């Protein structure tokens, strides 16, 4: 806990450390004493997310259960200048859900009710703490489908919306932003607003809803979300396509994306990452013959329609130097490839002492050159890198592995390599984050890659929503 008041980076108001009367007051706002946890009683998990290197404990943890409660807490926090950090499941990768300035951590995990399934309008309204995997389970028997599919299925929908999560079906279906129709938001002041609506289109002024999406808890607290659904695709078939090297694999991607029915996913993966994942899972991968692979998925209403795409994609890939195309057409076969794909991050983490991540997104035709560039950096700086990612949308996940480097060497090398990568991404028209967000970890890269006036606009937006700078201070801008 900070013993002296700290100022936010927007520097408007000194944030206060909580005193005992604040705790008393907050206790009065929360009807169940079990839902307010103070000081050392807060579990260590709540002082970091999946970034792990950024550690800071909140002073008080409140497990909120209603919009009214959150509104009352925000009213108090804004009156008293107390920092409030929203938290879903803490699976974020950029330190977003870490109370950098202490204060209140507002956990949304207990707000996990399904509120309405509007079959006619194909809309689902949920509280923010509902987990992504619960949505999939809930919808399975209904014939309806929520397409976004980020790797971490135990994340909350509130977290997904707040980071504009991407995932494995973005090529065909887009990202979280494309499926949010409306949000209920508690503003910094405690006022409650409903932004967006059940409508399918909307040109009514600035889209506050879209500003909220991807705002990582810095603009307001999301307390309810209405999500757009589509009809469930009945059949999915994946193709595991081996290539002699990554360059060949990546250069086939543009042609694969031009087929008549867009695939849902085009992922790239390399042998060493696959090996790490097989070892981590204790389960061999169905093919080990090649250095690089594309994993492509197609879905559709019938096997025959899907097979047409599969055929077209396999032909295109073979025409672009693929060695073969392996079919994962049953649940078991899909599991054998996708469970390995799904565990890459955990496996890389387990294979070394510490990792740092770069989640850049670049124009699709720059993916291969970017990976090649990262290899040059690996050799030049003596820092081991592993990568995989969404080739179909140019979003790379490149990990630096610390292995047995000492702290100082690790820090210097990571900084040098990351600075070079973000510079390069910027130069070729890329962006700092494709899907994990800025949080704390990527702030300086955002600052140096966006134009000055753009950053000023972002700061002004932040001030407009949160003049005192109490919402998740020290993040994004």
């Amino acid at each position, binding site marked *: 806990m900070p013993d002296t008041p700290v100022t936010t980076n927007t520097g408007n108001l000194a944030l206060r450390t909580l005193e005992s009367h604040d705790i008393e007051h907050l206790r009065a706002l929360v009807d169940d004493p079990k839902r307010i946890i103070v000081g050392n009683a807060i579990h260590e998990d709540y002082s970091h997310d999946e970034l792990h290197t950024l550690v800071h404990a909140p002073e008080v943890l409140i497990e909120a259960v209603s919009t009214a409660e959150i509104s009352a807490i925000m009213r108090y926090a804004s009156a008293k200048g107390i920092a409030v950090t929203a938290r879903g499941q803490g699976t974020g990768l950029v330190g977003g859900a870490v109370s950098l300035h202490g204060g209140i951590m507002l956990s949304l995990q207990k707000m996990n009710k399904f509120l309405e399934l509007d079959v006619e309008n194909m809309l689902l309204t949920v509280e923010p703490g509902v987990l992504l995997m619960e949505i999939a389970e809930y919808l399975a028997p209904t014939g309806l489908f929520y397409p976004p599919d980020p790797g971490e299925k135990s994340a909350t929908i509130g977290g997904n919306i707040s980071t504009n999560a991407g995932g494995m079906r973005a090529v065909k279906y887009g990202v979280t932003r494309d499926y949010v129709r409306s949000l209920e938001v508690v503003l910094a002041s405690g006022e409650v607003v409903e932004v967006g609506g059940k409508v399918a289109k909307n040109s009514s002024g600035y889209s506050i809803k879209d500003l909220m999406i991807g705002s990582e808890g810095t603009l307001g607290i999301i307390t309810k979300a209405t999500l757009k659904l589509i009809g469930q695709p009945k059949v999915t078939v994946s*193709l*595991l396509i081996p290539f002699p090297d990554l360059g060949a694999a990546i250069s086939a991607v543009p042609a694969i994306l031009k087929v008549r029915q867009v695939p849902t996913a085009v992922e790239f993966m390399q042998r060493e990452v696959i090996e790490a994942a097989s070892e981590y899972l204790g*389960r*061999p*991968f*169905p*093919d080990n013959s090649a250095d690089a692979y594309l994993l492509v998925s197609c879905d559709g209403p019938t*096997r025959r329609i899907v097979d047409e795409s*599969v055929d077209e994609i*396999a032909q295109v890939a*073979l025409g672009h130097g693929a060695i*073969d*195309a*392996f*079919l*994962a*057409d*049953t649940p*078991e*076969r899909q599991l*054998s*490839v996708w469970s390995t794909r799904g565990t890459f991050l955990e496996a890389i983490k387990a294979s070394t002492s510490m990792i740092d991540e770069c989640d850049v997104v670049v124009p699709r035709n720059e993916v291969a050159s970017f990976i090649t560039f990262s290899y040059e950096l690996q050799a030049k700086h003596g820092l081991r890198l592993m990568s995989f990612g969404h080739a179909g949308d140019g979003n790379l996940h490149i990990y630096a592995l610390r292995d047995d480097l000492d702290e100082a060497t690790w820090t210097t090398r990571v900084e040098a390599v990351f600075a070079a990568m973000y510079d390069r991404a910027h130069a070729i028209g890329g962006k700092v984050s494709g899907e994990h967000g800025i949080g704390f970890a990527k702030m300086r890269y955002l600052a140096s890659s966006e134009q000055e006036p753009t950053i000023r606009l972002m700061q002004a937006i932040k001030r407009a929503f949160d003049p005192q700078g109490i919402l998740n201070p020290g993040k994004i801008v």
Partner: protein
Amino acid sequence: MTIVALIKQVPLTSEVALDPKTGVIQRESGETKMNPYDLYALETALRISQTHGGKTIALTMGPPQAEAVVREAFAMGFDEGYLLTDRAFAGSDVLATSHALSQAIRTLGQVDLIITGKQTTDGDTGQVGAEVSEFLGIPCVAAVQQLLEISETSITATSDTGTTLMTVRVELPALIAVDKDIHQPRLPSYVRMKQTEKRQVRRITLADLPDTDRTHYGLEGSPTQVVKIFPPESNTDFALWTGVDIPGRLYEYLQKEKFLQELA
């Protein structure tokens, strides 16, 4: 070495619902797939033939559309494939199925090794392998977890009997039923699928078998009588304990119900 893998086509989803009143199987869609356990048989056969040379043959008994699983075996790398099909086989129980399969194997010439899966996801008896070997009068090793040694004349395997791992050597020809996860099955190859598109899946009918007596096949040849089909009862009773020393009470309970054994 000539290796025959026995494979079966099963419904795509393994959750086959039974109508609790009539006991009739409710198949939601006609979609099918290869019995997933048979993928391990295919993979084992392919690995042996890759290291020891020889020919791989896939054999299935089923309706004409079961040809699809043989084509899939081609796409995985099998050399030859046979579909054992005839109206006379309809309604076969395990005995009649095994008799028919063993008869078909007799038409294939010299066969050194027969490999089956552990069980199917529909019939699920796990008996076909053993019965085929009995009809052929050859040794059978079930629940094979690992192959230790393969020679021209014998095979040494580890079999998991549930409580014991048993290492057995049998003379060839023999039949082995391999366990799940003996090897990671390869995926069917698109290139092979195209290359084998025109390859024939040979049909074997009753007339081709050494034993052409109809009464040995199908319903007539099936001594099993299905008296009743019903979903197994599921028990959702539970007790909720609150208060002190739950771990202690749980320990006593598990001991009383004989879930715990004293360590020797």
